[in-house]
């Protein structure tokens, strides 16, 4: 009987950890969403699939390609810090890529995807999936394709960044939040 209680006590601890793990993820992201600085990133959405988390819009960022200054080199797959600043139109752009954590300003942790001889690198940014309703994701991609054929694209995401953590906030098509855009289309 005593063994049962010990096991039960240990299991209760485990159960608390199991509940705490997702809750801490939620809390950290909520903090970033409330207090983080907001950036916009131009993107191209395409629609793939994840068995556990459903359909998402994979985002490809024009700003993820960076020219490194002479003498700075990174290895393929290296973890780096990308300092983000706003350009004249208010869109986020990568100002600097460093191996050490920046002391100030907004930054994200990224990974070097590839590099070229002219010292251009492409970064994998920590926000490249926008999960969507299974029924809506393909429609969003289709809508984007139609739009981009007719007019200049105005597709971007808003991202909140705080202390190196980035949380995707909203996907905009044609300057409108995706849900609003799709509602108008219907």
């Amino acid at each position, binding site marked *: 009987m005593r063994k*049962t209680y010990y*096991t*039960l006590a*240990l*299991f*209760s601890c*485990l*159960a608390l*950890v*199991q*509940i705490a*793990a*997702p*809750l801490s*993820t*939620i809390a950290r*992201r*909520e903090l970033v969403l409330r207090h983080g600085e907001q950036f916009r990133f131009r993107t191209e959405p395409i629609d793939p699939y*994840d*068995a*556990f*988390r*459903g*359909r*998402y819009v994979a985002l490809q960022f024009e700003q993820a390609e960076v020219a490194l200054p002479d003498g700075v080199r990174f290895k*393929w*797959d290296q973890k780096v810090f990308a300092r983000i600043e706003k350009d004249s139109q208010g869109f986020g752009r990568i100002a600097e890529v460093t191996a050490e954590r920046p002391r100030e300003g907004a930054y994200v*942790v*990224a*990974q070097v995807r590839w590099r070229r001889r002219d010292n251009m690198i492409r970064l*994998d*940014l*920590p*926000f*490249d*999936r*926008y*999960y*969507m*309703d*299974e*029924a*809506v994701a393909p429609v969003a991609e289709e809508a984007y394709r139609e739009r981009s054929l007719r007019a200049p694209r105005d597709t971007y995401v808003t991202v909140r960044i705080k202390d190196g953590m980035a*949380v*995707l906030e909203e996907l905009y098509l044609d300057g409108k939040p995706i*849900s609003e855009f799709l509602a108008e289309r219907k």
Partner: protein
Amino acid sequence: MVSGARANERSVRLSAARGEGNNARQWGLLMSPRAERGADSRYARWLSDQLPILVSAGVLSEEAAERLCDYYGPVDTGRKRRFALTVCSIFGALSIGLGIILLLAHNWEGISRPVRVVLALLPMVVAQALVGWTIMRRRDSLPWREGTATFLTLAIAAAIALVSQTYHTSGPSDMSNFLLSWMLLSVPLVYLVGATVPALIYLAGITAWAGYVQSDAGPSIIFWPLALVIVPHFWLLIKENPHGIRTTALSWALSVCLPIAVGITLWEIMFEGPLPSLTFVVYSSLFTVLYLAGSAELGAAEQPSRWQRPLQMTGAGGIVVLSFILTFWGTWEPYVRHRDLSWGQLREAAFIPHYVLAAAILGVALWLIISTALRRQTARLFLGIIPVLAAVGCVVHAIGIHATSLPDDMTKRLALIPTIMFNMYLLVLGVATMLAGTRTGSIPKINAGMIVLIALLVARFFDSEMSFTARGVAFIVLGIWFLATNLVFIRRRGEVR
């Protein structure tokens, strides 16, 4: 005495007809029951099924049948029911858990973030309550333990997945983080609840995790300390019943995951280093370890069937397939000879665990080979000797690649040494397996030997890397040798017609 000899003869005939030449134990049960009494429930069940038939056929009198029944005691008929219950509860829990994951993955539009948090935690909390209840009230029930633990394992995945969906977590190491947190949160269930299904999911999960981490050039070698977590559970299962369903399932998972994990975690030193044929030494050692460890007698009462010996089967299969690959000259050709091959970053301290692991696999293989040799279990060494051959091949290959002062022709000819060696090896292996099968009347063994021989013959017949003359002569010599051995065998038995 005479009737005993006749019974013996009949039982051998019967067992040969059933293709179970090795199962002298089975008939031993009928011949010397006292020694085997109560030991082997499978045969006791078989006997209890047979008795009514024997009585109705007039072979046994009813009293004799009753006496036999009394002698062996009641047959455990509840086992099948318990087994069915466990399997049903596991699959029920699996289906419901996966269904919840899919429903949440639909990503219902218009659900607010607080509602999503509740939705994420709800299945997990329900599953936790079920597991808690099982610990308190159904501790001895395997179906409850396995079922609830399976459900909780999947509910954890659903919770993490829904949270990461809600906040669009993504980025380079997102999938590996997801898998690792899922695995670490669920693996304690293996010990707290005493369930094996979470251990199976854990093994598959950490193997997939290692793959994702390796593709991001991360420290996939951590797979091994993670895998060690399962070892005590595996050990307990072996002690409980070495050929039970749970032991067998975990053994299958191990024999699938370990070869994959070796390939993933040792990728750099095997495939990117200056010694590419090290791969063959490491893999041959690994398969030898699986084969020899799986062949060890564990003192089980029942004779295990083939599918109950996954380590042995995977090991043997791996050895044969690997040897077959190594019979091709192209495998040993030093085509990377003029490339820039250096240890480079592989000299860094970060790779010490990789070398330690490779050395450990080799060391365990050698230890098992030596102990098998000392016990004079020579039949097992037929398969177990492959790491030694692979090591010889590796040395020859290394000379071919690195001795740049040697002329190219010479190194190509050097590559013939391991090629011929492995062709001979597989030939001997195929013939020996076939003969062993014929001797014991084991049809699967005869078939396995024949498949090896046929594959070898076909591969060499169509092998464009060797000259037609060499192949022609080799085939004819081989044919003559086959016929000659056949003739000698028949002569020795005095049955030539």
